[in-house]
């Protein structure tokens, strides 16, 4: 017999059943009775504000959830650190180790960013995250004509190895983990990072950190690319293989839903497209005969924490569960570490508003809350001024303090997955997990991720959602406080914004010229030739030749330029 707690298996059902048939039947009957009685009478007097209610990603939601909405099997919820990891990748979560507070930073020349890093470390930040400028992200030199006005603007400019040495000057790379947000040119930056560490005599196996290196989502969402899809996939594969052999604690790829979301996708699309991309990378590496368990434990993820609090928590839980099942059932992983999804979260820059900018602190706090309730391993909170420009030091400090308040004042980290068992959150978790499976089936029918990219499928899906959101925002159906609701008549509060040093670009170009003039030309020529030879042979790993190239002080643009001649360039057929 059920005692109403939902824990009693009852009448011969499996012990792992969450709600007994008797309980579900009783709840369903009471719900129907309540709807016909109290609810109907109340609605007759006082109707609800909307005809229908939906989550941020458009899933319809009921007014109340009950034990009838829980997953059938307790093991779908389970315990933290145990398959399918719904509740978290580790048995102790924040009780054992708080999330890493990892505020991204980068602007100007390497020395300027190095100063910001030292400031953030002094403020209690526990990991570094490097933001590169657009030319570096696109694999161009600071003196390329396309780099006009963008050198050091949105991130730090890195052209050659001496820039990288200056970036990490005085920073203990064996103890501070370093995340690098870079994609099509990621392997060059990895080569520079490895070289800086090796030249200091450090053990590469002790370096911890993450390379974003997620090229597929670039074609889908963020739109930073150099080469066509297939050679780009080969480069990602080469870095994964290199790191699995030389860098035991380093995450060679950070598969990212964040940019998919920022480009306009909803929560379900974000995790579904990220899982589709993950499946493509894993299939690509295992196709070369490499055992899935030799690299999967180092795969890492990056998601947004958006505005719909409960859906976001459910999203993180759903993607952990989906990933675990995919790795075990589809790829045959046997090492539990290959099945546990670890992720970095960042609050949603696209939700920040220019009017009433102080409201952005509140938005960011609530979004950070969903990341923590969802079990993020590391977190970046956005600056309140990011609807204006890259954040000021003051804005970054408030953002970091937001995390510190969540960690130290709220008591939230004391309990693992505190929303686990919530009828609503569990139900949403299951529906989002099913939603991923449905999207992956569609993508499979199209011939897989690469075919879907080439057909513009993701781009269209994201564009449709972005347009729908913009229309709902315009009609007021989606309120944005200070923008379409509670709008101030008087001008905005002024915020102090970051100012780029206007001389930084000139200095960086001069330094690049100096490095080229000072290097050994014969060594540089030989390194370039070897790199091109390696690129022509798909079975040769590009990393060793790239490490020699950066050591010979070849620049980013020289390296990518030479490979463009081998691989070609990517051009997108734009859809809107």
């Amino acid at each position, binding site marked *: 017999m059920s005692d109403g707690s939902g824990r009693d298996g009852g009448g011969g059902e499996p012990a792992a059943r969450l709600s007994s048939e008797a309980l579900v039947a009783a709840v369903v009957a009471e719900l129907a009775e309540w709807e016909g009685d109290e609810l109907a009478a109340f609605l007759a007097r006082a109707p609800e504000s909307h005809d229908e209610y939906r989550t941020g990603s458009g899933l319809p939601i009921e007014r109340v959830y009950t034990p009838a909405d829980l997953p059938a099997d307790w093991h779908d919820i389970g315990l933290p650190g145990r398959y399918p990891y719904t509740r978290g990748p580790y048995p102790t979560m924040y009780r054992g180790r708080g999330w890493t507070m990892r505020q991204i930073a980068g602007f100007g020349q390497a020395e300027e960013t190095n100063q910001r890093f030292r400031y953030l470390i002094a403020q209690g930040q526990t990991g570094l995250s490097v933001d590169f400028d*657009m030319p570096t992200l696109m694999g161009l030199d600071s003196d390329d004509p396309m780099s006009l006005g963008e050198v050091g603007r*949105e991130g730090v400019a890195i052209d050659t190895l001496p820039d990288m040495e200056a970036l990490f000057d005085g920073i203990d790379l064996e103890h501070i983990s370093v995340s690098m947000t870079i994609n099509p040119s990621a392997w060059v930056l990895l080569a520079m990072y490895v070289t800086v560490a090796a030249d200091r005599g450090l053990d590469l196996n002790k370096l911890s950190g993450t390379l974003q290196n997620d090229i597929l989502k670039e074609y889908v969402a*963020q739109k930073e690319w150099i080469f066509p899809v297939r050679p780009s996939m080969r480069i990602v594969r080469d870095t994964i293989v290199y790191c699995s052999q030389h860098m035991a604690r380093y995450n060679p790829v950070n598969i990212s839903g964040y940019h998919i979301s920022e480009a*306009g996708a909803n929560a379900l699309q974000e995790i579904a497209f990220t899982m589709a991309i993950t499946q493509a990378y894993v299939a690509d590496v295992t196709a070369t005969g490499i055992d899935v368990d030799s690299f999967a434990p180092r795969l890492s993820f990056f998601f947004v924490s958006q505005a719909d609090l409960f859906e976001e928590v459910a999203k993180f839980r759903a993607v952990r569960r989906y990933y675990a099942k995919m790795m075990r059932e589809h790829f045959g992983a046997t090492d539990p570490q290959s099945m546990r999804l670890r992720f970095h979260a960042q609050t949603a820059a696209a939700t920040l508003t220019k009017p009433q900018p102080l409201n952005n602190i509140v938005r960011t706090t609530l979004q950070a809350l969903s990341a923590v309730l969802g079990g993020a391993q590391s977190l970046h909170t956005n600056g309140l001024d990011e*609807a204006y420009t890259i954040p000021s030091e003051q804005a970054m400090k408030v953002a970091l303090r937001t995390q510190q308040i969540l960690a130290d004042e709220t008591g939230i980290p004391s309990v693992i997955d505190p929303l686990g068992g919530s009828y609503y959150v569990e139900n949403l978790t299951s529906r989002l997990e099913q939603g991923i499976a449905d999207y992956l089936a569609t993508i499979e029918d199209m011939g897989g991720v690469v075919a879907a990219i080439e057909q513009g499928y993701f781009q269209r899906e994201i564009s449709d959602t*972005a347009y729908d959101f*913009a229309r709902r*925002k315009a009609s007021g159906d989606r309120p944005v406080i200070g923008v379409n609701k509670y709008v101030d008549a008087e001008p905005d509060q002024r915020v102090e914004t970051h100012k780029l040093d206007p001389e930084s670009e000139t200095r960086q170009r001069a330094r690049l010229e100096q490095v080229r003039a000072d290097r050994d030309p014969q060594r540089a020529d030989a390194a370039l030739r070897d790199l091109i030879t390696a690129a022509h042979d798909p079975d040769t790993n590009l990393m060793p030749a790239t490490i020699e190239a950066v050591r010979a002080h070849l620049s980013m643009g020289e390296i990518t330029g030479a490979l463009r001649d081998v691989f070609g360039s990517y051009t997108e057929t*734009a859809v*809107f």
Partner: protein
Amino acid sequence: MSAPGADTEPIRVMLAKIGLDGHDRGVRVVARALRDAGMEVIYSGLHRSPEQVVESAVQEDVDVLGVSLLSGAHLPIFSRIFEVVAQLPEPPRFAIVAGGVMPDEDCEALRRMGVAEVLGQDTTPEVIVATVRGLAREASARL
């Protein structure tokens, strides 16, 4: 308005992304909003140069050229656009509109350069459509 029936000619708009900036969510939403409002929209795609964009805007004989920038490089890039425009054999009839994320003081600087309107990230599709219509009417008057 120059001639009877001119109102029935669809408004032609070119939307462009210049430089290395890949943020195209906004520009694609604007493209659809203008298209849904009955305008002919030409989208440049990503990573164009000021020279390429001005040249195609002239060739396509557009009424309005909208340039979307979220890279922070709006001042140097618009300044280059107006240099290129100044070198054209005759002044173009299209109005130039800026869109994206830009600090207020920079919006003033852009207007002084010759940008007709700056439409920030929270501008509604309705306001964008109305603004482009107004500017296109002025551009037609320059025919």
